[in-house]
């Protein structure tokens, strides 16, 4: 099975021949954080024009360039950047401004963030300016920086072990939670809280701390704020869940193992594929029930839902592709295979999370047994299944169930109903039409993702095939 793992959203490149190979490029949010005031940031925007810069370059620790403006002489600008840490960067410029960082330094950093400054070898003159900035910084700072920023005598960064990662994650979560509580104290209506740049900065810092999944949740919340009429109730509830995760992650040492693992993964702790495949598999027959595609930035994400024909446990396969590259189609909807499924760490099941990888498996063929073998339940029983999952992992955003119900209308809302209860449907017109066409007023088995906004149909289990109604990216 073809799949790609994505990590935190940093822009990185490699400088050939350099001992410090990884350049972690700043984003606009980092530059905004480095600016002394928002007005200073805005005044630097025109200076990000790449045509104004000569002999510009960047490496793992510095960005440099010569600014050609209206003055008779150009200005030489140097910025020593600590990757992702706007608070410890240093800048120098030959312009007469007393402001530090000046608008030339900010403009250069913006051009770098916009990929208008190439990677390169540091020229000797730039190296001397960097040394002067470092020396000035040492004179100012009496105490050493955090361990992640400390360098050895020859300027190398010590390799970050697991303990360092954990410490960095804890620091990042602590800082994030303090920011979140400040937002609640100030109020979600406060302009400073509604500022998209503040949310992007919070998300970026979570990424730097190694909490990429949490950062993605924060970014999705930020997009809610940008709506004309934001759903503040949903936003507030989601913030509460994000707070829960942040607190749990900081206390993971006192949690039971499975729950601690689940918290770590939900926060963004990267688990190596090889580690997962080294675990104990669940071997058996698996039915490919449905798939659902979404797009996050320029990445398309596919969730493929499998259900064990032995014990009806669920497994979710995640695959990723850059837009236009084509998502993994190894497991067509309605097929089945005999194989090994390895679960990621988590608490949904005794042996792990619903997220999984498929190991050795046979050919995926058309299902050769009644499709009701996957086990559809009524709405009330489905609710109980959802409740059991949430009791173990309350931050879960979607829970798979197969419900035997019919789509119908309750006033202006579409719902799925049977004789026991009803739940709202969250569905676009085309998949709704397909579900209606399959149902024609009768109850039918429908696989849905149970979410806060309602049941999202993923597939309809027909008499001799599965009809795919999952969303396309």
């Amino acid at each position, binding site marked *: 099975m073809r799949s790609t793992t994505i990590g935190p959203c940093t822009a990185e490149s490699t400088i050939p021949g350099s001992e410090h190979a990884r350049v972690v490029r700043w984003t606009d949010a980092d530059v905004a954080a480095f600016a002394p005031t928002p007005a200073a940031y805005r005044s630097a925007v025109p200076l990000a024009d790449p045509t104004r810069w000569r002999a510009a370059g960047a490496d793992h620790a510095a960005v440099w360039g010569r600014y050609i403006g209206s003055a008779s002489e150009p200005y030489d600008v140097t910025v020593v950047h600590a990757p992702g840490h706007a608070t410890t960067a240093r800048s120098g410029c030959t312009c007469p401004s007393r402001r530090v960082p000046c608008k030339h330094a900010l403009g250069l950093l913006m051009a770098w963030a916009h990929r208008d400054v190439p990677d390169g070898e540091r020229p000797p003159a730039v190296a001397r300016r960097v040394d002067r900035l470092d020396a000035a910084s040492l004179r100012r700072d009496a105490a050493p920086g955090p361990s992640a920023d400390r360098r050895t005598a020859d300027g190398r960064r010590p390799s970050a072990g697991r303990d360092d990662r954990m410490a960095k994650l804890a620091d990042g979560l602590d800082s994030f939670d303090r920011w979140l509580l400040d937002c609640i104290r100030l109020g979600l209506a406060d302009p400073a809280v509604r500022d998209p740049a503040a949310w992007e900065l919070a998300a970026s810092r979570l990424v730097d701390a190694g909490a990429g999944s949490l950062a993605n949740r924060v970014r999705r919340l930020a997009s809610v704020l940008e709506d004309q009429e934001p759903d503040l109730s949903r936003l507030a509830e989601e913030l509460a869940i994000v*707070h829960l995760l942040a607190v749990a992650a900081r206390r993971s040492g006192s949690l039971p193992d499975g729950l601690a693992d689940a918290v770590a993964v939900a926060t963004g702790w990267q688990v190596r594929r090889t580690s997962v495949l080294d675990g104990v598999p669940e071997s058996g027959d698996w039915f490919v029930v449905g798939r659902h595609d979404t797009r996050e930035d320029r990445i398309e994400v596919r969730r493929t839902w499998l259900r064990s024909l032995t014990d009806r446990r669920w497994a979710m396969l995640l695959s990723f592709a850059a837009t236009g590259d084509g998502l993994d189609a190894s497991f067509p909807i309605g097929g089945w295979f005999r194989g090994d499924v390895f679960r990621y760490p988590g608490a949904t099941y005794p042996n792990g999370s619903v997220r999984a990888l498929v190991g050795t498996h046979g050919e995926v063929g058309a299902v050769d047994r009644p499709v009701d073998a996957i086990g559809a339940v009524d709405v009330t029983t489905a609710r109980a299944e959802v409740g059991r999952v949430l009791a173990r992992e309350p931050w879960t955003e979607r829970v798979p169930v197969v419900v035997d119900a*019919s789509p119908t209308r309750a006033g202006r809302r579409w719902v799925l109903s049977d004789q026991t209860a009803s739940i709202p449907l969250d569905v676009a017109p085309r998949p709704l039409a397909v579900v209606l066409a399959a149902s024609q007023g009768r109850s039918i088995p429908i696989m849905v993702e149970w979410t806060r906004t309602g049941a999202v149909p993923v597939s309809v289990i027909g008499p001799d095939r599965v009809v795919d109604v999952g969303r396309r990216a």
Partner: protein
Amino acid sequence: MLEPDVDITVDELVTAAVLGTDRRPPPEAPPGPVHDLVADSLLSDPAERLLVHLGAIAVQHLAAAAPDPPVAPLPAPMVHDRRWCPVDVVEHWDRIVEEFAVLTDEWLSLVAASPWHPPPDLAVDLLHRSRSDPDRRALVTEAVGPMAGWLIDLVPVLGRGRTARAIPVRPPPIGADEILRIVVEAVRISSPAARRTTLERVLATGAPEVLDEVADRLEGVVCGSGWLATLEHLGALARFRHRMIRRFAEPDR
């Protein structure tokens, strides 16, 4: 939907979150498990208490802790005993869309006359695509059956379409010799694309029983490379059409 007093509390919580707990203290939870959860947290900071309270409610919302009552099902469209098209018949449609679009109307007519109707996803696709083509819409409506009007009423984006005309009448079938005579005369059509289209239409109206014979004779023609691909395509079209028609003649296979 949660209990009414919980709903009121949610509103007050969200209001406190929007105004800020510095200005508006969060409400207390009504007695119950959520109240106990917040109390047990021993948090003194109103912002933290609000987030714990809201988190519990968020989980309750997701779990549909108090689901809505059952709702009556929709009235069904007219009762009929037509089943979903078998998988291989749908695969014929996929091939038609990909290679043999000239057979679209015939496939729809065959479905309309069969004990089948298109499966749900195909039915919806057909209705949506035909909403601005009255002739095609008439055929689609016949193929989909009584469900078509019912679906359009419920999901207006499928398009009411322009007023459907009567079902288009197919021309009488022509025999093998006539087909091959037209193929030979088509050499006078200078545009390869127009030539191919003309010949496809001819094969689409050929009598079913002569299609295999026509395919054999086309494949036996010695010709220049300019014609070879066209003749291969026409031969494939003829055989495919014959298989398609035979399948509909044996619905119980």
